[in-house]
């Protein structure tokens, strides 16, 4: 009899442990990190981990309006790098990203930022036409134009996405198709291959998890 009670109790304990694990699920942090001594609100010194942060940026959006990182303040956002005349991976990436966009369309805490890497051709007016034809209207999904230097540095150093000009590539540029998930503190919390439906599905599930971290 005792044995049975013991085994039931241990089963319950395991179940309780497992369920508490899933409740506390947190997305990982990507990129560089270092320890820093900081003072908290009470002035007490403590050691904290500082994660890689997306630096301030300023670009023209699809309406030719200067747009800065402030437009993503208080939001989690999905960033990617593409160009409008791309015929290889971009259509697939944006087809998949449209699915995510439609799912979070009414959620004011989620936004989308696509940077063009074609600094020669993709002026804001071109981006505007592209957005409209894709079926995107309004400021929730930003299409940003900037100089080669600023965009390429941001891509490689901050979002950790490889981009480049390549005269041997079919459309003149090469880039990775990652959709990068950024939290409200500008930290990288996920990177999903935008050409793979199963990874984009994961992104859809991770956004609510990330938002839940702020509901406390």
């Amino acid at each position, binding site marked *: 009899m005792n044995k049975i009670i013991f085994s039931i109790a241990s089963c319950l304990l395991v179940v309780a442990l497992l369920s508490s694990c899933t409740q506390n699920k947190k997305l990982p942090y990507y990129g560089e990190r270092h320890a820093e001594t900081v003072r908290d609100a009470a002035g007490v010194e403590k050691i904290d981990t500082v994660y890689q942060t997306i630096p301030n940026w300023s670009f023209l959006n699809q309406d030719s309006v200067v747009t800065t990182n402030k437009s993503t303040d208080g939001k989690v956002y999905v960033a990617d790098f593409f160009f409008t005349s791309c*015929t290889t991976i971009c*259509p*697939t990436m944006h*087809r998949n990203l449209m699915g995510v966009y439609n799912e979070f369309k009414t959620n004011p805490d989620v936004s989308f930022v696509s940077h063009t890497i074609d600094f020669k051709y993709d002026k804001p007016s071109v981006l505007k036409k592209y957005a409209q*034809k*894709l079926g995107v209207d309004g400021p929730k999904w930003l299409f940003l134009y900037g100089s080669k230097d600023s965009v390429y540095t941001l891509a490689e150093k901050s979002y950790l996405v490889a981009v480049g000009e390549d005269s041997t590539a079919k459309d003149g540029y090469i880039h990775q198709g990652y959709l990068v998930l950024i939290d409200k503190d500008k930290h990288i919390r996920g990177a999903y291959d935008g050409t793979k439906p199963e990874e984009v599905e994961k992104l859809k599930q991770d956004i609510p998890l990330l938002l839940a971290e702020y509901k406390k």
Partner: protein
Amino acid sequence: MRRHIIRSVFIFSIAGIIASCQNQETIDLQNYLSSGKDIYKAKCQNCHGENGEGLGQLAPPLTDSVFLKNNKARLACIIKNGLNEEISILDKTYKEKMPGFPELTDIEVAQVKVFITNSFGNNQGFSSYHQVAKELGKCK
């Protein structure tokens, strides 16, 4: 009696030849469809979609049987050389340039053409690669 037998054997063999011809075309169709599907996945699907649904107004759907029928003789040229003109598909206009795929051989173009015109709700039968080669010779 003998004449009867000879006659019926003759008729049967003719019928057999016709039946086997049809079989050969069905086999070709199946072959073209399966190779065409692989090429479609590699070259076309990123814009036109897994189910030929297109992408917004950037890339038209491939489900407009009327357009495909009216442009049947041009399809091979469009696949190989791309398209840079405004077209109307299912009452919507599309202006974006379609890139060409000059790397495709005549038989590959034929395979993609057969796949597209017999998928996504289209059912327009077989085109042999001889026929497609002729069409490609007349591209503008």
